[in-house]
């Protein structure tokens, strides 16, 4: 064993921090090119309708316009991460407000946008399908009658129960006759919860720039999965994969949303056809109206409980509003990764879950931080709390009684390695409550419990050792700020026992390295750290074979085992040993395992509610997390804090209301995400383990904190007021309305009683 030159628990400074802070770091929108043209799209103002004709003549006559194109010119093409169902430009029908009908290329962005506004599309409107409960009704229009012909990557598309169902996931545990189990329960509780569409709210809008170079079309993009985009571009545009290259790099926020980008198809096509660079950028309004957005949800839960509060039977029907296209969903079954996780932290012997993503005439749904899970976690953890209150059992106690323990199977259907539900619960349970005040507000305490998977798969990584004793790690994985590059850098340095400053990370486009799946699904820390470990092992073997026997690396110094000699790393690794740069490459593959790796998390909040206004204020929050080994302490804390505030936004303010198919917030710039003034006092309790699948037992962290925030606050609101608000956000309007309804009921009862 060689000793590390630094401790992983020492706070790190992001190597790119200065470049980012001083504006030197180049983001996609910062790329300019001589002769660049701008493209802008015309979009449907109608939620559902048949295209009768598209008149581009007025647009073509506008100043600066170089080209106007419709599907008649670019071809009938569809794109999608798994199922290619979204037209690059629509030809026969439009399926949501924001669907693209034509594109204009002009000398400037303003000219392109002005001309795009002059595209005239004659659409015969039809009654849109917007109600999740009507999607599979007998008279519902079939939004994708030709779905059988859509390209599906990676095998055969799983069967769906109805053509308006995008994807379908089920879980079945326990006896065939679950109704018999429900019948044996002392109580059966049935509830319904709803969550709205939201947007990831990254600060950098999606941008792309395509240009031709040596027979290759390169596209710089804000997409976080460049290799996947590369393949989708080749498939959608019928371009030889060797003729394309995708360039990502620094991405200005992601939170799941930047796995799907939609301008690149047009941008590449237009750059190839015109022979000049073409740039496209989405406005914030376009981001919100065209998505992808977090799926709205309607969740029905039914739980059979014994007299002492044990869950014996549970069924869940989960409907997600998938919008007009399933194109943003990468998961093979076209549902969402968290779809069956409403009661993931519990053991229930009999379970039936039916989760569906549904086609509607609304903005397409995609991945946003803990996709699918944050919706059902709000429902599940509200439900558990509601059961506890109705049975008069302490909310912590009911969770502890039903918590997933070792050897048990989760109600989500999974076997989870070393579940730590009780540990995280106990950690927040013992924290002092916020003191009351005599200020006219009512106060309450709420808790929520969850588990979040650690992603896996395979991951390539390359290192180059230079004669000046420095290493460069070469990766095609973009940087969206969560710290994946630092994970690789620090683990590689720690494993080799060299100074991390010796190790830099270089991002390369898709043409220059082996494919990876990009950032996402809470897998980067796991995969990046293990690949770095493996790679460091290769380098160690190489050095061992070339250095005098008995030398070992310790803290950037080669030391003789008998302690008699020490030589700085840079003094031995010189041009004599390394005359030319040496390359090392590994492909890390996750080991197959019966058990799934998850992090457990509990959040306790104290809220104050102003019953006159419906304003809910979180006075303090305590987050306990089962973290595994921490590799980047600063970034790790940042993910938890950022995740908490992300969840706070979705709990209290963030929403996209869709009215008649139109996103209200897109028109009015009303979309709200938390500002600094919304920050609340947060204490984080870390419960480390060494059982994670990453290096040293590292786990994931990025999607851990946000799903528990809304249910914890809803539960505290119920504790404070007796009112359960079964929908998000818990904004003053909703809370006030619920309080008014409560007071109305009390008043009515009072009257009839008197």
């Amino acid at each position: 064993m060689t000793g590390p030159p630094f401790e992983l628990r020492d706070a790190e400074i992001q190597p790119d921090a200065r470049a980012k802070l001083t504006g030197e770091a180049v983001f996609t929108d910062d790329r300019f090119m001589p002769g660049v043209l701008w493209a802008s799209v015309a979009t449907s103002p109608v939620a559902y309708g048949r295209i009768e004709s598209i008149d581009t003549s007025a647009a073509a006559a506008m100043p600066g316009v170089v080209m106007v194109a419709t599907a008649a010119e670019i071809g009938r093409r569809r794109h999608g991460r798994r199922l290619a169902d979204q037209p690059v430009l629509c030809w026969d029908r439009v399926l949501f407000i924001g669907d693209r009908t034509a594109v204009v290329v002009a000398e400037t962005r303003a000219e392109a946008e002005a001309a795009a506004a002059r595209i005239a599309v004659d659409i015969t409107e039809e009654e849109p399908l917007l109600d999740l409960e009507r999607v599979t009704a007998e008279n519902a229009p079939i939004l994708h009658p030709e779905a059988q012909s859509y390209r599906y990557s990676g095998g055969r598309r799983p069967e769906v129960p109805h053509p308006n169902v995008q994807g379908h996931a089920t879980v079945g545990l326990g006896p065939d006759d679950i109704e018999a189990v429900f019948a044996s329960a002392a109580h059966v509780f049935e509830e319904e919860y709803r969550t709205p569409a939201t947007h990831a709210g990254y600060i950098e809008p999606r941008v792309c720039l395509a240009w031709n170079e040596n027979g290759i079309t390169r596209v710089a993009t804000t997409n976080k999965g460049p290799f996947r985009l590369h393949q989708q571009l080749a498939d959608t545009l019928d371009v030889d994969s060797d003729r394309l290259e995708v360039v990502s790099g620094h991405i200005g926020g992601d939170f799941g949303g930047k796995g799907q980008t939609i301008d690149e198809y047009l941008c590449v096509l237009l750059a190839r056809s015109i022979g000049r660079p073409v740039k496209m950028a989405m406005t914030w309004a376009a981001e919100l109206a065209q998505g992808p957005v977090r799926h709205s949800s309607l969740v029905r839960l039914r739980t059979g409980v014994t007299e002492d509060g044990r869950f014996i039977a549970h069924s869940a029907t989960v409907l997600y509003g998938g919008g007009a296209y399933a194109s943003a969903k990468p998961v093979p079954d076209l549902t969402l990764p968290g779809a069956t996780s409403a009661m993931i932290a519990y053991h229930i012997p009999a379970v039936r879950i039916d989760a569906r993503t549904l086609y509607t005439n609304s903005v397409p749904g995609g991945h946003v931080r803990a996709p699918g899970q944050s919706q059902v976690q709000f429902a599940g953890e509200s439900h558990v709390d509601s059961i506890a209150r109705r049975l008069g059992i302490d909310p912590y106690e009911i969770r502890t009684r039903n918590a997933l323990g070792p050897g048990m199977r989760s109600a989500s259907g999974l076997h989870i390695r070393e579940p730590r539900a009780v540990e995280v619960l106990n950690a927040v349970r013992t924290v002092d409550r916020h003191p009351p005040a005599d200020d006219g507000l009512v106060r309450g305490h709420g808790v929520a419990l969850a588990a979040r998977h650690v992603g896996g798969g395979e991951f390539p990584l390359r290192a180059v050792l230079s004669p000046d004793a420095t290493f460069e790690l070469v990766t095609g994985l973009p940087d969206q700020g969560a710290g994946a590059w630092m994970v690789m850098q620090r683990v590689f340095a720690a494993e080799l026992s060299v100074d991390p400053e010796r190790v830099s990370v270089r991002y390369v486009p898709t043409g220059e390295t082996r494919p990876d799946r990009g950032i996402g699904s809470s897998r980067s820390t796991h995969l990046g750290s293990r690949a770095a470990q493996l790679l460091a092992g290769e380098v160690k073997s190489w050095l061992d074979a070339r250095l005098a026997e008995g030398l070992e690396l310790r803290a950037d110094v080669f030391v003789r085992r008998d302690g008699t000699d020490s030589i700085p790393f840079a003094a031995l690794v010189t041009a004599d040993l390394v005359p030319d740069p040496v390359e090392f490459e590994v492909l890390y593959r996750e080991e197959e395992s019966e058990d799934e790796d998850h992090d457990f998390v509990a959040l306790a909040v104290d809220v104050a509610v102003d019953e006159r206004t419906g304003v809910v204020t979180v006075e303090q929050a305590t987050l306990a997390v089962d973290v595994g080994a921490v590799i980047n302490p600063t970034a790790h804390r940042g993910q938890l804090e950022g995740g908490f505030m992300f969840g706070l936004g979705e709990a209290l303010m963030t929403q996209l209301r869709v009215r008649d198919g139109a996103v209200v917030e897109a028109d009015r710039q009303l979309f709200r995400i938390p500002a600094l003034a919304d920050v609340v006092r947060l204490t984080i309790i870390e419960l480390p383990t060494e059982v994670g699948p990453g290096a040293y037992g590292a786990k994931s962290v990025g999607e851990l904190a946000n799903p528990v925030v809304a249910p914890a606050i809803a539960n505290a609101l119920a504790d404070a007021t007796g009112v359960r608000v079964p929908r998000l956000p818990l904004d003053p309007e909703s809370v006030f309305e619920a309080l008014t309804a409560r007071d109305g009921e009390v008043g009515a009862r009072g009257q009839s009683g008197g």
Partner: protein
Amino acid sequence: MFGEHGIMSEVAPRGTSHSIELVLNGAQIRADVPADLLLIQLLRDHVGLTGTKNGCGVGVCGSCSVLVDGRLVSACLVPAVQLNGRNVMTIEGAIRVHPAAETVVAAFAASGGVQCGFCSPGQVMAALDFLDRYSTPDRATVLGEFDANLCRCTGYYSIIESVLEAAGRLADAP
């Protein structure tokens, strides 16, 4: 660097353009700008100062924060023509000439006040403006008054720490 970009006539091909003179990052420049050209477009598209980031485009996010005559301004809201006779400082200029800029940058880096980095130059500009007004701020002042810039990554905790850390370092500086 402004010598090569300083003449703006070629970027005002249509409509009425106005001749303006301003001090940009310490250098006197003259530009012919159309009436609808925004400061952010002048800076990014024509002068090549891309540290001023194009975020929401509607004055909400603060990613395009610059100092105009020492006051914090969203460059996406200001027509360039209004800058005649003004002094504009962007992140690129601040890092060269503002006495507090390097300290603020170092404090943000050390406190983890930067993740994806897209809002970061705007946060630095906002911090320079804030620390100019409050040289020894406490946490409550930061929470109450440092509220012009959105960040989606950090949840703001490390940004609050960064601003306080910067204030401390500036106070300790000789």
